[in-house]
Every structure is written in structure tokens, then in C-alpha cells.
């Protein structure tokens, strides 16, 4: 099973729209992180939420973010991180986006 991104790839999270259902929280939108692993392919909750099948299944990645990249005022240690599962269509290679 392969997806677009390999483990270690640097990715930037896209911004969401104001409509629909999706599982990409605002706090990671626009942020840059690194891919930990590809979980596999799963039905898309964005269409399932409105009664559709969610097919075809979409690649889902475990992505890690440094806390200091997420919050301007993070009070913890520099190694601290957040790990979250994101679908491939929410990610772009970091160099393709304006930072």
C-alpha cells in the first residue's frame, strides 16, 4: 500500500472551508508537520457524513507537529509534539505552499 507521502515527508495542512463536515481541526490548518506513517486507506468521512458511501477510500496519515509550530505562546518544552491523523487530500508538500 502506498500513498503520496513517505514517512518523514514534510507536509503543510490545507485550510478548511466554512461548509461541510471534516476532521481536520483548525489548530493544524496551515501548519507544517512531518509524516510519521501511512495508516492505510479509509472511507472519507466528509461524504459519509451526508449519507454517501465515503468511497473510494482515501489515504490516512499519522502526522506529527512540534508544539512550538502550532502555538505562538506554547509554554512547554521544545521537544513536545502533537500527533494527529489526517487524510491525504488535506496535505500538500511543504515547499508547494506559501508559508
Amino acid at each position, binding site marked *: 500500500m502506498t500513498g503520496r507521502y513517505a514517512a518523514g515527508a514534510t507536509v503543510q495542512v490545507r485550510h478548511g472551508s466554512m461548509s461541510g463536515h471534516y476532521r481536520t481541526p483548525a489548530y493544524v490548518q496551515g501548519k507544517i508537520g512531518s509524516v510519521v506513517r501511512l495508516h492505510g486507506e479509509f472511507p472519507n*468521512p466528509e461524504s459519509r*457524513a451526508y*449519507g454517501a458511501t465515503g468511497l473510494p477510500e482515501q489515504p490516512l496519515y499519522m502526522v506529527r507537529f512540534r508544539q512550538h509550530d*502550532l502555538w505562538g505562546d506554547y509554554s512547554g518544552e521544545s521537544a513536545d509534539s502533537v500527533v494527529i491523523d489526517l487524510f491525504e487530500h488535506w496535505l500538500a508538500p511543504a515547499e508547494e505552499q506559501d508559508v
Partner: protein
Amino acid sequence: MPRTHDLGGLPAGAIDQAEHATEPWERDVFATVITSIFDAGLINLDELRRAIEDIPRDDYARLGYYERWTIALETLLIQKGVVTLAEIEEKLRAIDARGHVA
């Protein structure tokens, strides 16, 4: 501003660590919803989440976890034409009239 349910990173106060036992009606809602999803295929989990997320912000904040599940289940069943509001209200009157649930 993030959507109603999108809470990660919002300012918030201390966490109430008290244990609260799940009430029987809450377990029954859990069971009814899970049965609706996995046995009957009436709804799916993503629809449930979406219906919870559509709850108005003020209500979302003050309602309990399983109260939100109840609202979401009802909304979805009405949307899908499985039950009507009139049927629900008639059932509520019947429950009240009997003074017990049986």
C-alpha cells in the same frame, strides 16, 4: 472562529476531575445509537458526528455528551424520514400519560 465542536487550543478553565457514573438512560442512548449504526444501518457514525456538530453553539456548550447524541439521533432519523416529529411528540405524551416507561 473555529466551528462549535472544534475545541483544540481554545482557552478553557480547570478540568473537573470528579467521577460521574453513566446513567441508565445514557447507556441506553449509546446502545440505541450503536444498534442503529451497526445492526440496522439507519445512520452511520460520521452522520452522527455531523449532526452533533450542527447543534447550535450555546446548546452544545451546556448540554451533556449523551444529550448531544440524543439530539443528533433524532435529527438524523427525522431527516431520513424514519420518524416524524409528530410521532415523537405523541410518544412523549404517551410516556407522560402512563407515568412510567413500559
